[in-house]
């Protein structure tokens, strides 16, 4: 078994570690002043301080969706802010959090779009030159509008959660806006003693997966996208993939 079930002592230890900044200030500094036993306490202090800075790099598998390809030659513009998205937040008594998710998110979207459309070209920022635009049925621009997370210390629940608000803008073959859709991906992961960074990284990865799943299944159902597909020359509108059920309500709140 990878981890034991949460017990009271581990929860106590976790809470103790989460408040490490407080410990550093009140206890460790006091001990150094009182005893002057430098090196060992200094090492402990450095370790505690290192534990307070949460540098999280999101990684994970990049699955290829099992959906019917949209019969279109699409151009995708990934803005620089999307490619290198990074979130930073200082939370009182929770520490300093830096979440790097741009690289994983970009890799995920490249794979997703490649599986969803017949052909995909990465293009520059619209408006495109006439020669580039001429070969495309449309251009899709994904953006990250907002990223947020909750820790057990904030929510009072025994898991980390993350949400990502994506906006997808579809431009037609003439460069005019055909559709705009905001999608929220949500993920959560169990809190584990000494593993808060891994838990938040997993929650973020699950949020990317959830957003990707919505895009894979529901993009063709958006009104503007369906109209754009119907207007494509020589194309028939593909059947929208229907979810078999909605297993969980979308919280879209964090």
């Amino acid at each position: 078994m990878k981890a034991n079930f949460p017990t009271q002592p581990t929860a106590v230890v976790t809470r103790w570690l989460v408040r490490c900044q407080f410990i550093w200030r009140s206890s460790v500094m006091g001990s150094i002043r009182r005893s002057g036993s430098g090196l060992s306490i200094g090492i402990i202090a450095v370790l505690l301080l290192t534990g307070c800075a949460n540098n999280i790099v999101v990684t994970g598998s990049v699955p290829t969706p099992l959906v019917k390809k949209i019969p279109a030659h699409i151009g995708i513009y990934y803005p620089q802010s999307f490619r290198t998205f990074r979130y930073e937040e200082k939370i009182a008594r929770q520490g300093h959090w830096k979440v790097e998710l741009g690289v994983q998110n970009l890799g995920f979207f490249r794979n997703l779009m490649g599986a969803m459309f017949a052909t995909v070209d990465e293009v520059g920022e619209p408006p495109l030159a006439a020669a580039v635009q001429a070969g495309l049925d449309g251009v899709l621009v994904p953006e990250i509008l907002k990223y947020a997370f909750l820790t057990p210390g904030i929510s009072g629940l025994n898991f980390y959660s993350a949400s990502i608000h994506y906006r997808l803008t579809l431009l037609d073959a003439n460069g005019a806006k055909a559709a705009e859709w905001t999608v929220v991906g949500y993920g959560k992961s169990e809190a584990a003693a000494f593993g808060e960074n891994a838990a938040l990284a997993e929650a973020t990865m699950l949020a990317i997966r959830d957003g990707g799943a919505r895009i894979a299944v529901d993009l063709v159902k958006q009104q503007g996208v369906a109209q754009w597909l119907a207007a494509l020359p020589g194309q028939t509108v593909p059947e929208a993939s229907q979810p078999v059920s909605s297993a969980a309500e979308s919280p879209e709140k964090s």
Partner: protein
Amino acid sequence: MSWRCDVSQSGFIATLPAIAGRARMPVLLGLALALGGCSATRVEESRQANTGMLTGESIVILGRSSYNDRETEESFTDCITSELSQGEGAIRLIPEQQFKDEMYPWFEPRYAPTSAADLEQLFAEPGVQARIDASQIRYLAWIEGDTVTTDKGGSMSCTITTFGGGCFGMTYWEEDASYEASIWDVQNLTAAGEISADANGTSYLAGLILPIPIMARPGNAACKALAEQLRSFLIDEDDDDQADERDE
């Protein structure tokens, strides 16, 4: 219903008298040993269809995820997977993450089927049936439930100074583990049955200079009981059927 003491603690428990002697708290220790470390487990099974597994066929253990504040712990599904894949009558399992990646996005929390009746529609999606066939998946087992703390009390304090340290006192907490496995036959696209396992137990943490845990681990007890019943559910009847066929 069965009672079960967690024997994995026995090695540790054997060292307790020496510690207790030094700490001069034999009464407290005896009380902890008498009451702690045991779980009461109840397992129930409901069968809706015949089961059986041919050589090469596999099962996927899936934890039911949701967006509310409770969901099946990953450690529990890992435990079930570990129990089923080892020992006599080991069953071929497809790892949950591998399965979810191969079937993406159809087993993500938002789109995962909630009943066996959804399987027919799901299998009509492009590529889904082919991937199930390629992996020779015969059953999906959805695990739903969690372990909650139902009661807790006592107090313990620990002190660390430059001259030494120690703990004194006693705390306890009672946990209730309740899980259900729903088994779907993906060959026949039907629900094969349900198995539920409930376990509860009280754990103690005694402070006798050193903190001494006496853990009941009802989650672990429920895992082992559920895994054993699941193994029996999947393969025993087929053995009987095959025996009947041989007799005929």
